[in-house]
């Protein structure tokens, strides 16, 4: 990441994520499809545009040219000042900080710190508006690229071994909301493919540079949860969310549910049928193992509706 007082062209400890930031351009991670508003539209119309598109701001474009930028903060101010029918032109910012498609992300990060705005129109070198980007969009784009590039990369050693690197990735580019989501269906009453979700999740997290210790904690807990889904339920799913706060893993099924959660959490307690035991499971240690691995664990269940297990893992070395 861009560091204060260091020449960004000569990083002394290059990690995979740092490499990406020095090599990736804005054009590669921007959103090319964008919503715009005209300067003669009213703030009331602008409000509808925001609502209908689920966004918080847009560039203002007149005759194909970028003339300003307007956001939800401007809308709030207009409402407060009773100016909801004022034209966008009267409420927009005319001095717009933009990015160029061929700019490297490392330079953008410097701009983010300097200006603190949340969204930046992206221009090509002919000064035409070609896209828009937010900090969140940049991180998502980076994560996508990281996953693709890792496949092609021969050097596994390029993956960072520090637990805090992922946290830093999110922190260095603070955003309204940045998240990597993962979902994997799990078949019930069948141990054949059980463990695939845990294995895939572990691999994705490994590519993001998470340290081996945290990888194992998440891997083991997710695997145990998945085995429970496969052994005792009619099927369900494993979900995971990665953001700057940490990693959350959920195991959700739709039946039959656990009659007594407290009893189920006791180490050694097992309702495993013989076919489960003969395949190497049913020792009654799954939930106990999950408890040891996760920083927090919540198990909610009702018969016959099903079970919802939530586990939280924090970044720490």
């Amino acid at each position, binding site marked *: 990441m861009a560091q204060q007082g260091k020449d960004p062209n000569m990083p002394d400890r290059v990690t995979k994520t740092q490499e990406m930031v020095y090599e990736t351009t804005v054009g590669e991670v921007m959103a090319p499809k964008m919503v715009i508003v005209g300067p003669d539209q009213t703030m009331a119309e602008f409000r509808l545009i925001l609502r209908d598109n689920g966004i918080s701001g847009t560039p203002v474009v007149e005759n194909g040219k970028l003339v300003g930028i307007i956001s939800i903060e401007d809308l709030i101010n207009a409402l407060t000042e009773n100016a909801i029918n004022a034209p966008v032109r009267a409420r927009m910012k005319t001095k717009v900080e933009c990015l160029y498609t061929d700019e490297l992300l490392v330079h953008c990060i410097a701009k983010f710190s300097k200006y603190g705005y949340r969204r930046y129109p992206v221009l090509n070198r002919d000064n035409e508006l070609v896209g828009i980007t937010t900090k969140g969009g940049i991180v998502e784009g980076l994560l996508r690229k990281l996953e693709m590039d890792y496949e092609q990369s021969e050097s596994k050693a390029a993956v960072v071994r520090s637990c805090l690197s992922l946290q830093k990735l999110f922190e260095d580019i603070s955003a309204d909301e940045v998240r990597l989501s993962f979902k994997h269906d799990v078949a019930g009453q069948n141990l054949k493919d059980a463990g695939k979700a845990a294995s895939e999740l572990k691999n994705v997290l490994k590519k993001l540079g998470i340290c081996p210790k945290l990888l194992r904690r998440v*891997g*083991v807990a997710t695997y145990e949860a998945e085995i429970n889904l496969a052994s005792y339920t009619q099927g369900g799913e494993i979900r995971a969310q990665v953001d700057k706060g940490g990693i959350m893993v959920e195991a959700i099924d739709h039946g039959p549910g656990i009659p007594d959660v407290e009893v189920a959490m006791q180490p050694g307690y097992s309702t495993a049928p013989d076919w489960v035991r003969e*395949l*190497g499971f049913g020792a009654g240690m*799954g939930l106990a193992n999950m408890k040891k691995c996760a920083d927090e664990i919540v198990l909610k269940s009702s018969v016959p509706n099903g079970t919802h297990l939530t586990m939280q893992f924090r970044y720490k070395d």
Partner: protein
Amino acid sequence: MKLREIVNLLHADVLVGGNLLDDIEVERCFSADLMSDVLGRTYADGILVTGITNPQAVRTAEIADIMAICIVRGKQPEAETVALAKQKDIPLFVTKLTMFEACGILYLKGLRGVAERK
């Protein structure tokens, strides 16, 4: 000790990872047939000695960062188990010895067990 020494001590047939035998240094041994037992331990540079022949042995080894798998009692692993071990680059071998004998021999040679995760 090196994985090759273990393979020799147990007179094992190597099914996957013959090229890795000299690269892997083993210090500990997980002897278990129940995967949760394996997963409830702390991390160690270890091998798994087991009677499980289904692919879960490989999945467990991958999740727990276990370095190699030894199946006992001359039991042949399922085709899918061998395929998965190849895919994940985890050495897999089979010994005709019982689990008791295999563990006894390795213990006498200095391998140690793995503590429970606290």
